[in-house]
């Protein structure tokens, strides 16, 4: 799947491959040690540059404020 910025496609592919392997082979088996951090840092830096250029950062910031991604919303273990 392509990224919002074509320049980031290769980084995205590397990150997605890393994450999907980690998810299936480690995380689902109970191993939560972090992985893919270096590639994720590079990929994120790339897309956030494009997000700012397209003026999407304010919209994202507003969406985050409307629905904060925090412990208050993370109640799925209680259901």
């Amino acid at each position, binding site marked *: 799947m392509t990224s919002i910025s074509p320049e980031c496609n290769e980084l995205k592919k590397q990150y997605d491959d890393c994450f999907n392997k980690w*998810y299936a082979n480690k995380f689902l088996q109970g191993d939560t040690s972090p992985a893919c951090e270096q590639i994720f840092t590079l*990929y994120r830096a790339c897309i956030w540059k494009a997000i700012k250029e397209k003026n999407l950062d304010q919209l994202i910031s507003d969406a985050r404020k409307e*629905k904060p*991604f925090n*412990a208050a919303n993370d109640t799925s273990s209680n*259901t």
Partner: protein
Amino acid sequence: MHLFETSHLFPHPWSLLTSANFQKYPNIHSPHVLTVDILSRSLHPTTGHLHTERLISVTNTSSGPAWVRALLPISDICFFHETSILDVRNQHFEATSTNLSMRTFLTLEETVKMRPGEGGTVFTQTAVVNARGVLSCAARFVEEGAVRSFTNNSAKGRAGLQTVVDALLEQMTDRRLA
């Protein structure tokens, strides 16, 4: 306000469905999805839940009658913001997405949940549509149109997820035979 709900049982384990969900795009049933990016991803320090935040863009292929499109600055590409929480211990996944574009006119909020069920994984999808501002006078019309779109697209969405599940199963079979 209009509400749409659907529930479907996938005859596959939760672990496979959630893996497929992260790899859902592109698929042949979802040509309208243009880009998907991960804005953030982390493990919650106390619960251990996997938190993911994504930015998704889709082409705007339908969106109501010509007069609506003529009056409003409807662009060809719409952006959505999705946040999800995955609890691997209790096998619960929940993702909520909302439109970033056109919020002064319409808010769409879609929630997808996946948990184990008898014979597989239960996939439920809920959508809430609210027409706002200048569209509120035509609210019912706009909202019903959006619900019709959701009805059509949710079946495509499930078909899309199934194609990814099938591809993953094939990969697993190939690896075993190799």
